[in-house]
């Protein structure tokens, strides 16, 4: 399941809803990305996320489908916010559930790695000197390489 929204989310509620009624899940991994109060040594007062409505949902669904092909997941969730947010607020949530921990850990990392390079979101940080678009990081592209060889899905 994927969701793109402006409003904040409650991590506990999201996990509870995802696992509701399921007794066959053995492992749940969650990742939360949050707004930092500094960037390159400068104070940040506001982070604004822009996205490409339509393509964002398609990309997140594609990435989630690929994770479900690679790992035996019983449930997965991606929630990504857009619009203005302040330091400390949640930006993104990824949750994966599987019978055993390895698949849940790996799939959560896979989802975040691909979300970082493929989902059409752009961050603008506002500090005392105005707003700056965040530059993409080469390390995010590098992070994808680990998934480029055929991965044996954790059993």
């Amino acid at each position, binding site marked *: 399941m994927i969701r793109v929204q402006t409003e904040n989310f409650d991590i506990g509620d999201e996990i509870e809803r995802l696992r509701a009624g399921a007794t066959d899940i053995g492992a749940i991994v969650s990742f939360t990305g949050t707004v930092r109060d500094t960037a390159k040594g400068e104070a940040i007062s506001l982070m604004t996320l822009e996205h*490409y409505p339509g393509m964002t949902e398609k990309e997140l669904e594609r990435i989630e489908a690929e994770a479900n092909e690679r790992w035996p997941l019983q449930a997965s969730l991606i929630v990504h916010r857009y619009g203005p947010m302040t330091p400390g607020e949640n930006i993104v949530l990824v949750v994966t559930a599987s019978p055993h921990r390895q698949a849940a850990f790996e799939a959560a990392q896979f989802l975040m790695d691909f979300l970082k390079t493929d989902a*059409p979101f752009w961050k603008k940080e506002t500090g005392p000197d105005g707003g700056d678009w965040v530059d993409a990081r080469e390390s995010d592209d590098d992070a994808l390489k680990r998934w480029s060889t055929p991965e044996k899905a954790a059993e």
Partner: protein
Amino acid sequence: MSVKLLYFAWVREKTGLGEEMVDLPGDVKTVSDLIDWLRSRGPEYMAAFEQSNIIRTALDQTHVPHDAAIANAQEIAFFPPVTGG
């Protein structure tokens, strides 16, 4: 051929437009051709596409490289490398 162009993040700010409908000249076949043509349309486009190699493109909401054929795309988007997550 009439297509919808969309611009995001600093590409949007530099062109001064979120989206526009344009009629493409017949000799614009690929994304690269389109970027070259856009650059000729005025200083704001020249500024937005100055470093065209770092601009990313999506045809009908799918990522494509610059040598991709535009073919019958309805919607073409230009944006900086993504920075979500």
